[in-house]
């Protein structure tokens, strides 16, 4: 086992806690998209734990980095990371999906501190992020704008409009992150509407294109750091991920796009994630 620096352990702990919340939330809500949330837990933990300049005590500060979850169906993961990083009490996560709650299945900003933009229909977030990035450049602000998309979402043509626009306008302050777990709603990406050669497509569109293991915190951090030296191009991080990551029987399974963890399945998932948290705590104290 390689020696990890404290920074990686910190964000790995954050990811593990986010995963536990996601499973608890989708269990309580009887809701879908547990696999989609688990897939991005590491990306979110690295972003909120290390990369994004955001302040829970001043969530609308003008200099904050903007983060848009374009794959809004993984809202539970964003709510969880916001709660874990101090934007609101983790207790509030128990409202997710409940009658009268503001914590909707698809991420919404209304009444939820820290959510930059509401989504849920796919193919919206990148255009909005490009608008924000363009505004930042016009206003000579130095913050960055991040948009996290799913792979299936890249079927939406509107993304490709935004991809054209962003390179044409040299939005080097824009970072698209693709959760490339290779599984979409009904089947694999390749069987549904293949994206390969995916990286080549972004390169051909003039983007700074980086492929990275979306569960390797150190690699993610290094990749995000590369954005800082990019002078003219928007950056895309194509994150190779595993849908359902962290719960062995949910990994790489189409089933867990929609299935909600209940009964023994919930108990097993919960126990597995609890073990992960304990192991990380032990390695942290070792």
């Amino acid at each position: 086992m390689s020696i990890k620096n404290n920074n990686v352990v910190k964000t790995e702990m954050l990811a593990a806690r986010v995963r536990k919340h996601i499973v608890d939330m989708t269990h309580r809500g009887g809701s879908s998209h547990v696999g989609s949330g688990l897939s991005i837990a590491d990306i979110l933990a690295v972003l909120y734990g290390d990369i994004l300049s955001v302040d829970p005590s001043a969530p609308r500060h003008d200099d904050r980095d903007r983060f848009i979850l374009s794959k809004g169906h993984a809202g539970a993961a964003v709510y969880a990371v916001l709660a874990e990083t101090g934007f609101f009490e983790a207790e509030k996560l128990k409202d997710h999906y409940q009658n009268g709650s503001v914590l909707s299945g698809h991420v919404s900003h209304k009444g939820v501190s820290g959510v930059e933009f509401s989504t849920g229909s796919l193919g919206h977030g990148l255009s909005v992020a490009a608008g924000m990035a363009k505004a930042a450049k016009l206003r000579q602000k130095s913050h960055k704008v991040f948009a996290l998309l799913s792979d299936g979402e890249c079927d939406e043509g509107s993304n490709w409009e935004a991809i054209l626009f962003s390179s044409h306008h040299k939005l080097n302050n824009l970072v698209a992150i693709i959760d490339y777990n290779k599984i979409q709603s009904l089947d694999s990406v390749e069987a549904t509407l293949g994206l390969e050669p995916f990286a080549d497509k972004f390169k051909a569109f003039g983007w700074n294109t980086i492929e990275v293991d979306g569960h390797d915190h150190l690699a993610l951090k290094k990749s995000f750091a590369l954005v800082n030296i990019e002078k003219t191009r928007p950056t895309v991080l194509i994150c190779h991920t595993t849908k359902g990551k962290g719960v062995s029987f949910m990994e790489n399974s189409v089933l867990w796009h929609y299935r909600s963890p209940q009964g023994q399945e919930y108990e097993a998932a919960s126990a597995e994630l609890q073990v992960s948290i304990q192991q990380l705590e032990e390695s942290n104290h070792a």
Partner: protein
Amino acid sequence: MRDAFIDELTSLAEKDPAIMLLTGDLGFGVLTEYAERFPSQFINVGVAEQNMSGLAAGLALEGYKVYTYSIANFTTLRCLEQIRNDICYHNADVTLVSVGAGFSYGQLGVSHFATEDLAILRALPNMMVVAPSDPWEAKVLTRQMALIPGPKYLRIDKGVGGSNENSADVSLGKGRVVREGLDVTIVSIGAILSEALKAAESLSDIGVQARVISINTLKPFDESIIFDACRETGGLICIEEHTEIGGLAGTISEACLTNGITPKFFSRIGLRDEYPTIVGDQIYLRDAYSLNAENIISIAQSTLRNG
């Protein structure tokens, strides 16, 4: 009307660096001066209206007062979900500007007929819906709209309503009584006001005095001007260059029924629930689909005779 809008926007942009005009690669010759004078307040985003609407939301949430410009249904229906989710739900300060109300582009075919826009945009929460009757009114309304943050729709007509310029009488959200009368009321929206005025003139010749109301804002809607007409005049005929579903007639019907106020009679002139199959200039198509003074006159005559 299109030039009046851009003239006014140019004056606004001179004073306010937050004004940002996006076009979906349309406005040849129309936007040129603006684009040259305010290069940092203008982006031709290309032929990509979904992206344009998302960009507009993003720019607006960062403090810009954004205008999206294109023709026909391209700033509206093409990107309706971006308007709903990104602009309206976030209450972003974006004005959708569509040139080509109704049959303005009559020769171009059904793709270029903006004939369902009022009904569809009116249904969106937070959205203001504005349809000036005349170029001078478009100028005044553009100025007034700029003072109100939030999502707005500006429907630009090629036709000219023909009402006398009276800027003091124009107020966003308020209808205008363009002609006084008590026998019947003709209500119009947009430049088809010209047909209402023509009908009122002819009716006057046969002793029928028609009140003519021009509605410039469908939402929020000036109910009181309609309720007054219901109480004071012999009935309502409304005319719109738009489907008869959900636009002016729909708004009036909802307002009246909801408030228990009934006109002595009510008749609507609009496009039937079917697509036009022929082309022609705006006047030709109005006639072809009976959106004209003759139809108003014949309804008024037969109703008043029977009444």
